């Protein structure tokens, strides 16, 4: 399965992936309209210190702990992709407790959120990958 992989050797810590992610999942067609003056809730986050930086998003594990820990059944897998039905999520954050990668976060309305590879939004392919200026994030089969 194609997954998003990060290579910290090329991550510039520019945080563009976070903005591209938030925009892609906003449902709006203009980034300014989508993000100006708003708090960002990206599903990928850039971490780092000093001169090292790297982006973290869902690894889409073959054996996803978050799915096993989800109390509402909101988290599920779909052809290997780990997805979340936000209408079922009650925001208990058990998935955040479970994910060894720290890849899930809390969304604007208190439910959990995670990368779904942009397959359900208008971007159609991971926006973080598309917008990465230095190919530090790639979408590939490994």
């Amino acid at each position, binding site marked *: 399965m194609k*997954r998003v*992989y*990060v*290579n*910290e050797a090329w991550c510039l810590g520019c945080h563009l992936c976070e903005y591209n992610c938030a925009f892609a999942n906003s449902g709006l067609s203009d980034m300014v309209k989508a993000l100006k003056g708003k708090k960002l809730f990206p599903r990928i986050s850039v*971490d*780092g*210190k000093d001169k*090292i930086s*790297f982006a*973290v998003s869902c*690894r889409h*594990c*073959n*054996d996803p*702990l*978050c799915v*096993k*820990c989800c*109390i*509402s*059944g909101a988290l599920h897998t779909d052809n290997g992709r780990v997805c979340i039905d936000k*209408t*079922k999520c*009650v*925001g*208990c*954050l*058990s*998935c*955040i*407790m*479970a*994910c*060894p*990668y*720290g890849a*899930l*976060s809390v969304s604007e309305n*208190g439910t959990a959120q995670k990368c779904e590879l942009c397959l359900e939004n208008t971007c159609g392919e991971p926006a973080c990958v598309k917008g990465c200026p230095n190919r530090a994030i790639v979408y590939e089969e*490994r």
Partner: protein
Amino acid sequence: MKQYVIIGNGIAAAGCIEGIRSIDTESHIVVVSKESQPVYCRPLISYYLEGKTTLDKIGYRPDDFYQKNGCEVLYHETAIQIDHENKAVVLSKGSTVPFSELCIATGSSPFVPPFDGLDSVKNHFSFITLEDAFALEKAISPDSRVLIIGAGLIGLKCAEGLHDRVKSIMVCDLADKILSSILDQDTAPMVQKFLEMHGIDFCLSDSVVRFDGNKAIMKSGKVIDFDILVTAVGVRANTALIAEIGGTVNRGIVVNSEMRTSLDNVYAAGDCTEGFDLSFGDNRVLALLPNAYIQGFTAGINMAGGTKSFDNAIPMNSIGILGLHVMTAGSYTSEKDGGTVYMQKDDTSCKKFFVRDGLLKGYILVDKVERGGIYTSLIREQTPLETVDFDLLKENASFMAFSSESRRKKFGDVV
């Protein structure tokens, strides 16, 4: 062809079904369900009262779950006996179901202490099943004064569920702090204070001597008036079916890492079991959803002839009450047990870590729960803390604390 029988229809049963089907897509599965609903997660009942989930969303799996997995569910049916010799389960309505492999996923039942005068209380509820929630919902009104006995997870989630729907809530507990199973003297008062600010009252280090109609007479002499009583003192594992036929039972049904009981072809999973707690180093009843699912899944695979071992169970809880998130995991090894405790705390948040033998054994996070799973994995994977920058981790659950080599491995590999 085999016939799998699962007694119980909770999360462990769902895990068991999925475990079996990951190996064996043919054989018949029979599920014996006491309740009339398809599998749902019991902790969701407070969210139901709160309005965060609805009956059409509460199902743990899609509507076609049983059908797709080729399961026959016997609703409103209880297993009353296991005929181990003939490999069959005797049901309450008189029939028997033969099994090749059996999984006990009977869960637990609320424990109600024998209070004096409890019979005189008109509106008394437990808070375990959806039926309980329906009954409670029916009984409450905006003018209700609710008394909850037990300030544990169930009691407080019940308080949250009722918070906007009743006039007042009083929670009392014998212990001197709330959530005594997961919080300690530093963190429990913070959460208590937060809940008090939201209008929930507490009466701790006190217990009910007797009930007199709508009055609870406390040991301290205090008298609490209420309209609705919820007892949430605790639960007991349902072990009888195994105990009766000589299987090894302690506080729960004893299982090994493959979820086998001491009896051939009989497995157990979920809240009714007692298994090895990695952080504690001994057997415990770990009545937790993740555990139930993984145990069920593990049992399922082994029942179907596969091989799967679940040997890194630890207690872990993530609970949000009225917007305050608390995450805890592992065991709280104290300094007198040779452990080291690290704590960063301010008025509203806290991060506390319990370390022993160079390993993280447990943590308590109040409010600051971001990426808590990174801590959980340190416990479960028994990562030597000398290989990470633990000072940084205490501040912030970040992969910066790991070597770039381990980051490359974790983020570059398929997992």
